[in-house]
């Protein structure tokens, strides 16, 4: 019972990892996942208002529920093109 977590760009640098997983228990929504990582990596607090979140490749918001098996991506504003 787990959630796969992906970080990209500066958020991968801030956490020192590109991918990890969390036991689903205790995580209800995206905010609870983000807060977990802010606790572990305090510099992530700087991204609270700017970070973007996706579940299974669709954009979601902080109050979107997370479910077992989800792929959650956390990343900074995009700069492609």
């Amino acid at each position: 019972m787990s959630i796969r977590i992906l970080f990209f760009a500066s958020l991968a640098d801030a956490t020192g990892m590109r991918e990890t997983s969390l036991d689903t228990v205790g995580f209800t929504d995206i905010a609870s996942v983000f807060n977990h990582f802010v606790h572990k990596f305090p510099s992530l607090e700087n991204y609270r208002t700017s970070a973007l979140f996706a579940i299974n490749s669709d954009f979601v918001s902080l109050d979107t529920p997370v479910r077992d098996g989800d792929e959650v991506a956390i990343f900074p504003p995009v700069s492609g093109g």
Partner: protein
Amino acid sequence: MRSQFSRRSVEVRVFLLVRNAIEVQPIIDTIQKPEDGALVIFEGVVRNNANGKNVRFLEYEAYESMALKKIEEIGSQAKKDFDIRDIAIVHRLGHMEIGECSIVIVVASAHRGPAFDACRYSIDTIKQVVPIWKKEFYEDGEVWIEGAK
């Protein structure tokens, strides 16, 4: 019934993420048809300066599965919202030197107006929603660029 072996009857979808230099002509050759009266081609290229600093080279990183999905959605939306016949979007990832092309958009349509509009819509939307990030390398360091200009 449409033959699966007839190339002409098969719609070729050109939404790609690539790691090598993008060649424009093969993209044009893939999507252009005799009924097209306009081809609008946008190339985004690596500039040697940003915010007053000399840029030596760039690296692009992507959340590839989502980036491709979003590029396909943007292409589909462009075909719905503008009177165009087809659109191709190819974005390059990885290391790129000054002057190299990071993205190519080719829009084919009967007339130029919708082709220009669809191309502008597509590049602007890509810069807002496709999970790709650019890192600029300067003489004295490197910085992730966050957000579109």
